[in-house]
């Protein structure tokens, strides 16, 4: 808001200079954070166990990368997260469409979705372990169980929100139900469905990491838990950095896909936020 006060008064050159300075200033906080980390470690306020030096953490990540562990763990975690995500996406969209087109499906699933959505589904993990064991199948089941709710909810809302006029005109021009669904309703509902998918994707990664932490085995979460058991704190911090990078990449990729898929939609013309 301060910027709004001053901007109209300054000449163009000054404004460009100012915006470059602000952009550069964005790096300051990251540099400050890293400097503070190093400073706290050097000062000896905390033990290396509580906060290992940045160098040690980077070294650990480097070693993981060289030995191939990092690639395997990332691949395993991403594999679980993505399989779960795609099942949740396909199943969620299908279920959401069934619910908005069939009264019986809506009657049956609506209370299940509205009760299940806000539940902390991770509490069901021991039950899923009891049924399916501790291997991939139960991890992926947990991911689907968690990630399907936002997709279903978004699909139902999206299809409800499709303009009546669009559907009427398509019918009027002789579209059959099938064509109506694929050519009118789904494209018109896509922006909102994508929003649901954008919630489901990070959720899939979160659940993948948590289930790995709880059940052990390969994967970024499992590796981190192993490091934690052996009181290897550089390993724990390296795990956080690795998981953060994967999460960041996933969120960015999803935003990119959204822009590509919705290039025809008016939102693509709006200034890009996030």
């Amino acid at each position, binding site marked *: *808001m*301060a*910027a*709004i006060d001053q901007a109209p008064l300054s000449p163009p050159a000054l404004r460009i200079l100012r915006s470059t300075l*602000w952009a550069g*200033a*964005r*790096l*300051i*906080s*990251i540099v*400050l*954070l890293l400097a503070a980390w190093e400073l706290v470690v050097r000062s000896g306020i905390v033990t290396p*166990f*509580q906060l290992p030096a940045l160098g040690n953490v980077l070294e650990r990540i480097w070693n993981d990368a060289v030995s191939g562990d990092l690639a395997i763990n990332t691949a395993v975690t991403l594999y679980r997260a993505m399989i779960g995500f795609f099942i949740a996406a396909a199943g969620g969209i299908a279920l959401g469409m069934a619910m908005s087109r069939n009264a019986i499906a809506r*009657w*049956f*699933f*609506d*209370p*299940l979705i509205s*009760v299940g959505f*806000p*539940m*902390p*589904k*991770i*509490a*069901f*993990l*021991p*039950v899923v*372990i*009891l*049924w399916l064991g501790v291997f991939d199948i139960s991890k992926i089941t947990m991911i689907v169980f968690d990630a399907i709710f936002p997709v279903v909810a978004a699909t139902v809302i999206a299809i409800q929100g499709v303009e009546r006029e669009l559907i009427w005109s398509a019918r009027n021009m002789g579209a059959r139900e099938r064509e109506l669904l694929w050519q009118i309703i789904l494209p018109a509902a896509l922006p909102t469905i994508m929003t649901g998918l954008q919630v489901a994707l*990070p959720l899939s*990664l*979160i659940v993948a*990491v*948590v289930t790995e*932490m*709880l059940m052990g085995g390969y994967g970024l*979460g499992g590796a*981190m*838990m192993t*490091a*934690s058991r052996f009181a290897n*704190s550089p390993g*724990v*911090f390296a*795990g*956080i950095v690795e*998981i*953060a990078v994967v*999460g*960041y990449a*996933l*969120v960015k990729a999803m935003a990119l896909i959204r822009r590509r898929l919705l290039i025809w939609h008016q939102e693509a013309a709006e200034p890009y936020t996030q």
Partner: protein
Amino acid sequence: MKQSLIRYLPLLLLAAGWELAARLELVSSTALPPLSDVIAAWIDMIKDGELVSNGASSLYRAGAGLALSVIVGTLLGISMAWWKPVNVLVAPLVEIFYPLPKSALIPVTVIWLGFGDGSKILLIFLGCMLPVTIGAFNGARSSEQVLVWSARSMGANRLRMLWDVVLPSAMPELLNGIRTALALAFILLVSSELIVAQKGFGYLIGFLGANGSYDAMYAVVFTVAFLGFAADRIYQTFVHRVLLWRQ
């Protein structure tokens, strides 16, 4: 009454199907103990206080962490929208840490604060703070310029404007962010307690599961799930009240 019965009939049907499947031994009774046994186990645990004492310590952790995150997150988000230097400093950090699955912080909070309440409260605080911050930031940023200008022309100073114009118009998005945080608090609570704890719901679930008393384990699992659901419903009723002036 009748309407809500029809609405929630599918849940009752599922419950009946569960009881039948277990009683007819279509599934093994260790994997799925009959619903009536689960209810009996739940009543037992309420009677001997096990569920109440563990529940109280879980709710204390979730409540403390969530309260901290709401206070700090709101202040941070509104300052980000109001003072550009704060935004420039904080926004990159928010952008980096927002996609991080917060449960990855569980081992770190344990390294810092040990196995007790402190590490869980810190975890819930850190995990829930960003959704609140982003909600407050987006809400405060979108406060209508016309309102801001008219308040200024009527001689309101910056602080007055913050309180009278920016905070109310930030409310809907802020409250939405807090709703996300509320759900996250339960998730982080349960996952951290399942991994390391000496009391709480997650500990109780793990302990009962390891002992093979699956009916009691199911009872605790459903208690947690119900509390998460009920908290969300109560919160939504509260939000509806708060935002009544908007209509």
